[in-house]
């Protein structure tokens, strides 16, 4: 059987010829902002790494308060390359949140959320929230001091919600306190519920990206209209794929270097009856919220201070979700969106830096 015969034999049974044909003709717009497209692909690549290393960790990890810490220590010290697998999982999680935020802000600044891509935008925003939920649930799993108290603080924030506060805390903790029941619960969410939800949403997100093609920023569209020249493009296969592959290689190299030179720490085993250690702080991507909470007075305008913060963040998230649907296509509105994005970026960066400097553990 020749390769041609084999191909037609396969094509008859797995008919994908029209799809690969379409991919062969697919092009990607090429302009001075093209580099920002790579954040999405890198985030997807890091998600793949998370699935792979997560599956490997499951082979040795034991999700119970009595054994979780010991099993992670076993992975770090006894299993060949266990330190590497866990460090890559932890570092890749951090990088993935960073690239997802990079993707969000590049979409905001390039105004790629515009019609007809509103659903792509919403699915991406929900994916970012689920990614942060991945980080939050995964943080507790080694059952060390830092993660134990961070989870206590994180879940306690929901207590200030009116009416459903106490119920939400119970729902997240699997009881009144952070115990082994919380560990089992967050473990289930981390390895079953979130992966299923994220995989389904990624499928939708990628489907929409393929159908609509990559967005061209309004400024580039304008220039092309004025000069009468079409926007330049490059073939998806192999040019863009090879570019993407380069981005993935950069991410992989960074990941390998971080894991090899800075293996992720394990810390001390959680003790529910020990005092919280000084310098406790959440993962860096929650730090700006954590720092904002620190500056909130106990009550503001007669409302609980925490509730005000949660309310503002909730309102901001809602605005982010719906604004592409109600936006008018004018240069002025694009400027307003960019300005708001800059403000948010500056505030988040500033609070994160302050959080790092202020909450540094005192020797």
């Amino acid at each position, binding site marked *: 059987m020749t390769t041609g015969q084999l191909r037609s034999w396969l094509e008859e049974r797995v008919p994908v010829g029209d799809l690969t044909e379409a991919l062969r003709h697919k092009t990607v717009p090429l302009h001075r902002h093209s580099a920002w497209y790579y954040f999405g692909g890198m985030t997807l690549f890091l998600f793949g790494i998370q699935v792979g290393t997560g599956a490997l960790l499951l082979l040795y990890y034991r999700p119970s308060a009595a054994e979780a810490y010991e099993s992670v220590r076993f992975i770090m010290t*006894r*299993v060949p*390359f*266990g330190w590497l*697998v866990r460090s890559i999982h932890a570092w890749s999680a951090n990088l993935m949140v960073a690239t997802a935020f990079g993707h969000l802000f590049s979409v905001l600044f390039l105004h790629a959320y515009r019609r007809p891509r509103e659903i792509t935008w919403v699915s991406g925003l929900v994916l970012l929230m689920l990614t942060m939920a991945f980080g939050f649930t995964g943080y507790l799993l080694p059952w060390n001091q830092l993660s134990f108290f961070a989870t206590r603080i994180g879940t306690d924030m929901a207590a200030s919600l009116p009416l459903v506060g106490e119920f939400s805390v119970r729902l997240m903790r699997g009881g009144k306190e952070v115990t082994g029941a919380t560990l089992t619960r967050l473990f289930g969410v981390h390895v079953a519920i979130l992966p299923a939800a994220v995989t389904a949403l990624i499928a939708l997100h990628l489907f929409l990206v393929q159908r609509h093609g990559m967005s061209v920023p309004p400024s580039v569209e304008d220039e092309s209209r004025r000069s009468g020249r079409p926007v330049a493009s490059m073939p998806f296969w192999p040019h863009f794929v090879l570019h993407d592959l380069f981005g993935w290689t950069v991410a992989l190299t960074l990941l390998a270097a971080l894991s090899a030179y800075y293996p992720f720490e394990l810390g001390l085993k959680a003790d529910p009856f020990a005092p919280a250690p000084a310098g406790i702080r959440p993962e860096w991507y929650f730090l700006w919220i954590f720092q904002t909470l620190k500056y909130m007075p106990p009550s503001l305008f007669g409302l609980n201070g925490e509730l005000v913060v949660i309310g503002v963040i909730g309102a901001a998230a809602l605005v982010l979700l719906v604004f592409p649907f109600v936006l008018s296509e004018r240069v002025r509105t694009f400027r307003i969106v960019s300005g708001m994005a800059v403000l948010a970026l500056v505030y988040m960066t500033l609070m994160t830096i302050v959080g790092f400097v202020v909450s540094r553990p005192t020797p």
Partner: protein
Amino acid sequence: MASPGSNEILLGPARPPRRAVLDWLLGLWGAGVATSILYPVLRYLIPPELPEAATQSANAGLASTLAPDSARLVPFGLAPMIVVRTAAGEYRAFAGTCTHLACTVQYRADLQHIWCACHNGHYDLNGRNISGPPPRPLEEYDVNVRDDQIVVSRRV
């Protein structure tokens, strides 16, 4: 039939050699990345050896609480063992793992011998496989009763 290569030589190379070198480098890079991922993963999958002292003896509880014509299952290291007190009052101990497909055996007072429920394997009170699929007898251990304690040890 002429070899397909001869046409290419006459018509000149089908692909510029520079492209061939780049393809080769890309392949080499791919192989390097694949190896540096596969090797740690394969090593990771092999469970590390846990230093485990071979169990030489184990306590099997009080002799007075084991009635004649009955048995009890107790751990011998990580594996189960069965301690039988015969109808005549004699103590005997065997490895509790069936030699057929590693189920745990039990004592059948109605048959007065050891039985494996999984595939109906029978062993007599000397541990010999007398009926069913088990291919080998059960390993027999030495039993000593001191101060009402049943102490079982591996035969040397």
